[in-house]
């Protein structure tokens, strides 16, 4: 922290969606390390603690970044919650969903896709291309990874040029979770620690994309990135 910012508030908050049914808090220790890594590696000012929030929370519109995770199916959102989620996404929120079970078509994956289709019926998740800003927002990410690698790509829902929903099927936060003794809760398979490091890079890039948008697509970056990619 810079000396002149003694009174500065950390502006980026890792807000996590709490929902009924299912298991919303799959990796309780994951956010803390992720927040520390963001702070350590980037200039982003981050709130030190995770914020838990529901779709009916009056503070929902104080948090433009929202992480949602789970392994199992969960109770469908009420219609009011669906409409609030839609407003939140359209107003500029970035929703990051993470399938902690890594079971496409079942459990959380099926439930999340069901609820997203209700909230955003006119748009749907699509595979993010390799040249998407997410993969060059800070690190040059060439491999999509989490605690596991169920799918080699991310999916996203894009509205008006902004990818407002980012979906990881690879248990991204699982790669950041430690036990009270500081040991990794889950091994990263099949890539081991290198895969874990790549997961951190992808996580940082996702946060950077949420905060900077398609900044890295500006013309001024093009010649630099062309040399490095």
């Amino acid at each position, binding site marked *: 922290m810079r000396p002149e910012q003694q009174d500065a508030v950390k502006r980026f908050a890792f807000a996590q969606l709490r929902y009924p049914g299912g298991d919303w808090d799959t990796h309780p220790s994951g956010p803390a390390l992720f927040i520390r890594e963001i702070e350590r590696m980037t200039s982003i*000012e981050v709130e030190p603690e995770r914020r838990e929030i529901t779709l009916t929370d009056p503070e929902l*519109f104080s948090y433009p970044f929202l992480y949602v995770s789970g392994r199992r199916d969960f109770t469908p959102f009420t219609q009011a919650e669906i409409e609030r989620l839609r407003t939140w996404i359209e107003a500029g929120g970035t929703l990051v969903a993470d399938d902690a079970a890594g079971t496409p078509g079942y459990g959380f994956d099926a439930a999340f896709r069901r609820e997203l289709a209700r909230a955003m019926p006119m748009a749907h998740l699509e595979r993010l291309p390799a040249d998407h800003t997410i993969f060059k927002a800070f690190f040059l990410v060439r491999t999509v990874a989490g605690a596991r690698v169920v799918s080699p790509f991310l999916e996203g829902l894009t509205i008006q040029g902004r990818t407002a929903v980012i979906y990881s099927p690879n248990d991204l936060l699982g790669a950041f979770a430690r036990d009270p003794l500081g040991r990794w809760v889950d091994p990263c398979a099949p890539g081991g620690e290198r895969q874990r490091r790549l997961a951190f890079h992808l996580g940082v890039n996702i946060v950077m994309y949420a905060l900077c948008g398609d*900044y890295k697509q500006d013309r001024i970056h093009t010649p630099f*990135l062309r040399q490095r990619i």
Partner: protein
Amino acid sequence: MTFGDTIGGSFSPLWAGAAVALLAAFAVWHYLALRSRVSVTRALALAILRCTAIALVLVLIAGPRVVRRTFQQVRRPLAVAVDTTRSMGLSGGLEHSRLDRVRGFLGSGAFSRIAAGFVPAYFSISESLTPIAREGIGALLPQEPRTDLAGALRGAGGTGEPAALVLFTDGGHGASVRAEALAALPDVPLVIVGVGAGERTLDAEIAAVEPPAIAFAGQVVQIQVLLRASGLAGRSVPLLLKRGEQVLVSRTVVLPADGQDLRAVLEWTPPAPGSYPLVVQLPVQDGEQIVDNNRAELPIEAVRDKIRVLLVTGYPSWSYRFLRGALKGDPSLDVVSFIILRTASDAVDVPQQDLSLIPFPTQKIFLEELPNFDLLVFDNFASQPYLPSAYLDKVEEFVRRGGGFWMLGGPLSYLGGRYQQSSIAPVLPVELPQTPPAAGAFRDLPVQPRLTPAGRNHPFFQGLADNGGEPPPLRGYNVTGPARPGAVVLAEVPLGGGQSQPLIVLGRYGNGRVLSVLTDSLWDWAFAEAGRGRGSRAYLAFVRQAVRWSIGDPQLQPLRIEPERVKLSPGDPIRARIRVLGEDFLPSARTELSATLRGPGGESRALVPALEAPGVYRIEALAAGEGSWEIAAEASVRGAIYARASATVSASWPPEEFRSPGLNRPALTALLSGRRGAFLELGETGATAAALEKTLDELTASGPNERADAKPLAEMLPVFLALLTVLAAEWILRRRTGLD
């Protein structure tokens, strides 16, 4: 005069023929039937009498009428109109002027013979039809400044339903012949006798000038010029683009042959946004009679190309994300942004090649490229360690010379960025104490800002209408000193005890405009407001309006000039309303307004604005000559000018009258479109008269007036008496012959 009677009936020829045939057959049969009983003579007489009686009965039943027709020849009115506009005074190299030639024709015996068949009424025509005596034709002068044939002919309905209207004109006119004008013309046969054919007028003409659809400052504009000439084919002349007496562009053109068009292009670059009253001009050639068409007014309004915004952000934040979205969503903006994604203290575990980061090209941006931007935004950005003092000096110079500058709040702004010790400090509209307050330079707590009276009236906050005009709450603000003298505080944070912290402040520095926003949570007006059901209008409107204010967009100028008319005709004064507000967009008694009028020759004189209402003045002046007249105004407070505006009006007379000196056939034939009429050309008197007489015969050949009186034949007593006589004669003859 009665000249013939006829008698006719209403018998159908078919029925009449059939009746006669039946009667003939009956007569033969009747004769043959009687001849065996009486003598041939008596049988023949009885048959004739019976047939005659039957014929008379049929006549009475069929009801024929006697029709008496009366024919009369009447002399009808003939309207004769003579164009008396200035172009009719041209001679085109011939001995007599156009008007003299018309006079000669109307005074000829040939025309008198034509006129003898009518009751002629004479008119002069310019913008209206004016009755004149025949003797008055000789006194007509070609002096009317303007022609509106279609408009004038609409008055032809008052000429007493003439058999035809004969119009002598050269077609030089100042009003376009529009379809709706033609549709309104009375249904009178129109014979146009064109005057001016066969002349040899020396003339170079700028027939049309096509300005660019849009002109951008600093970019070449192409001005298309259509040239025509008469009797000057092949002559090389300079084609000039001028502003006042200053020649901006000159290129040589070779004048085309008669009847040919020449298209030339002039290229010029407006140096800055603004109004440019330009003139395209051809020098007057030796022997050229018409000089009015050697120039054309060409007002050009140069606007900025895309507004170039340089956005520098201290670290990734929601403030940046939403600001970038608002700026990028405006297609009129070209945004270049830099964010400090990583500082020297941030550690990454990968080589540089695995990062997408680029070096912040501060030297190129601040020492070379800065003047190419219109607006510089420091968004929660601390200049150290990135910008040495020399770079900040460039920022100060950029603003002083007219650039827009925003400083948006956050922990790294204002005192947090140590700007109090930099050359930026005097640029800002808030004072920066040398020492930050003990409680910190940034307060992170929810606050409810309030708009000042200036803010409530300001266009920045038009998006707050859905919230009753009240600003939504914010989270945190920068601590600074008070607003500088002359700065305008639009919003503030109440601190209690009558104290307040300026929150949104406008200021001027040199020629530049500066916006200070002392919070980094203005994006709440987009996102949090959406959660309250009010969308992001307040935020988007603020950003959009603030950008335009910063670059001096005339729409957001507190000073506007609204001319009553931008094209002036002879006698029209220059009138305009000047609206002036203070920097706070409120009418201010402290505002001093000065206005000047600059003429086409560059001469300038002061105007005296008359106060009409608070913030509204009127000016009026005489346009002493043709050309572009520029009204300029400045608003100032205590001698410091804070707003300038200008507007241009164009005075042109006689408008278009001499644009084309020759006979304007297209305009005249357009008058005949869809109506009975003919176009002739005034030439040798005998030939012209013959053509006119033939044309009038064709157009007015409706035949003599006719009156018909019909009387039913069946009502006539003689027929009835004849029937009785025939029946009686037959009865007597049959009795004498011994028949029943």
